[in-house]
């Protein structure tokens, strides 16, 4: 894993770029989120972890704007966006990737990435039909920007005209990241960015995430199961279980938290389990 000491001057004393406050979300009788609250500091990498079904994706969907919470608030750079429709959040600078790749299969890599910039472009229908003035200039400018800043950065220039459905999984995830970057985000929400990747792909993605934070100044919020990634990359970890925040803080601190360990390994004495396993290993060796 690359060297990851956080960039302390960026992480320090600024007001949170994203904040959720006592979020409660229910589907019928099921409480997906109960009083979830935490802050994301600008320029930080925050990880949201928890066992399956803990509510991580529901949390993301609420922040994205697909679910409206029963109570609580979502604040983006101090503005309350709890009831803001999802498409409008993009323009504010909130970008997001999905757990299952959500690329547009009918388009090439380049077109997918260009779509990320959609909410910042200005051409309207009439400009588009004529393609003489504004649309043409805008498209050329967009292309240059995407090529030089994003495609280069993510090392996907060799596949720019490929249809995304023809790409292997790892590259598709990278294209999705590229599209999210095209949105010129302030906050990038990544839902399991390295799910299903092998060692090498994971390391590449980790490097990209760090570079995104360092070179682009983007704040990263990610849901992740790969504990190595979480421990090495994040400045701050939030642990969810059964829709509630059971711990948050620096990675090492959270790792040692007994509540967190219990959530992952189930109830029952962890010490006794460890003993049994060690004892069994000794018995085998004997």
């Amino acid at each position, binding site marked *: 894993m690359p060297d990851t000491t956080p960039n302390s001057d960026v992480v320090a004393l600024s007001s949170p770029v994203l904040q959720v406050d006592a979020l409660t979300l229910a589907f019928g009788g099921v409480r997906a989120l109960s009083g979830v609250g935490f802050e994301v500091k600008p320029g930080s990498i925050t990880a949201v972890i928890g066992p399956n079904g803990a509510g991580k994706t529901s949390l993301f969907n609420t922040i994205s704007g697909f679910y409206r919470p029963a109570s609580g608030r979502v604040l983006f750079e101090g503005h309350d966006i709890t009831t803001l429709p999802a498409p409008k959040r993009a323009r504010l600078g909130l970008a997001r990737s999905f757990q299952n790749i*959500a690329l547009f299969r009918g388009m090439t890599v380049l077109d997918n990435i260009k779509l990320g910039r*959609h909410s910042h472009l200005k051409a309207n229908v009439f400009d588009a*039909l004529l393609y003489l003035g504004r649309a043409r200039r805008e498209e050329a400018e967009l292309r240059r920007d995407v090529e030089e800043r994003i495609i280069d950065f993510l090392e996907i220039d060799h596949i720019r005209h490929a249809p995304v459905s023809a790409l292997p999984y790892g590259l598709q995830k990278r294209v999705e990241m590229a599209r999210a970057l095209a949105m010129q985000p302030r906050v990038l929400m990544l839902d399991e960015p390295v799910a299903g990747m092998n060692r090498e792909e994971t390391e590449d993605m980790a490097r990209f995430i760090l570079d995104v934070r360092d070179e682009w100044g983007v704040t990263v919020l990610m849901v992740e199961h790969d504990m190595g990634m979480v421990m090495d990359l994040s400045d701050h970890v939030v642990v969810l279980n059964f829709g509630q925040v059971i711990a948050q803080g620096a990675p090492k601190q959270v790792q040692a938290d007994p509540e967190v360990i219990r959530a992952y390994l189930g109830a029952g004495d962890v010490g006794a389990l460890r003993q049994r396993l060690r004892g069994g290993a000794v018995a085998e060796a004997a």
Partner: protein
Amino acid sequence: MRIGTLKQSYIADAALFDSHTQKTWLGVGTALLLLFPFMASDYWLYLACLVAINVASATGLNILTGYTGLVSLGQAAFMGLGAYTVAIMQTRLGTPFLLNLVAGGIVAMLGGLVVGIPSLRVKGLYLAIATIAASFITHFLFANLKLTGGTSGLSLPPAQLFGLALDTSFRLYWVIVPVTLLMVLGAANLFRTRIGRAFIAIRDRDISAEVLGIPLLRYKLLSFGLSSFYAGVAGGLWAYFFRVVTPESFPLLMSIFFLAAIIVGGMGTILGGILGAFFMTMVPELLKLVFDLLPGGTEMTVFLSPVRTVVFGLLIVGFLVFEPHGLAEVWRRIRRFFHLWPFRS
């Protein structure tokens, strides 16, 4: 990808016709289009105009169904709105020809917007069925309003352009074909910009589209409006071409015809709209030719209509089962073969 075509600027890479060979063919094509009316008989001119009108309407439907993924069986109804608007304006107001066409497009566009309003709640096949309902309701209106002349419809005098009456296929060709070309060009341009991309995004995965900042309802309505504008203009041209508009002129079957045209041609490609409309318009003529050549003589002509119906159905089924990406895909394969020749693909 064509061998040996290097681009040195981004603008060049985004051009519609990007190689010397393509530009040459474009020149040849334009020359042919300009010479054709002088060499062709009235029958072929008639066909050319009909093909052009169908290309315009099919391109519009392609925007909505092929690119945005909103299945519509209402294209004929929107054409009807355009046709009736043109007929009413020409006969009652005597307003100029081009103005009537634009008005026809606008009225059809408004109809499209109305039909598109439920498209957020009503998806996929349900939307298709809603468009069938819209089709029936407009048919009912056409047949029962005094304004539209009831079941006998309206007949209109020829269009007037610069003092010249457009009453022959030859004269109409010079209006219909350029208008169609402009519309097709507009559609091609659309998909080089963010608006076209947004349409495709909505088709492929509308949730992702929303996350990227595309307001779904607005863009779906835009797609409906644009495609029905195209239909309205095509309907207006149709009205000036046939000079009679009745409620039976735009039946549900015609909507099915256009849907079949874009399927056969290739949904989601501009070329597909052109090829499909051309093919579907010419097939009945081809059948007529075959029937004329058959030894049965006049007794066989009674079978022409049902055979045409069967062939129509077979084309739809055949293409869907064997070549779902349509003629455009076949064309692409042929081109690839020639690009790579003498290398194998």
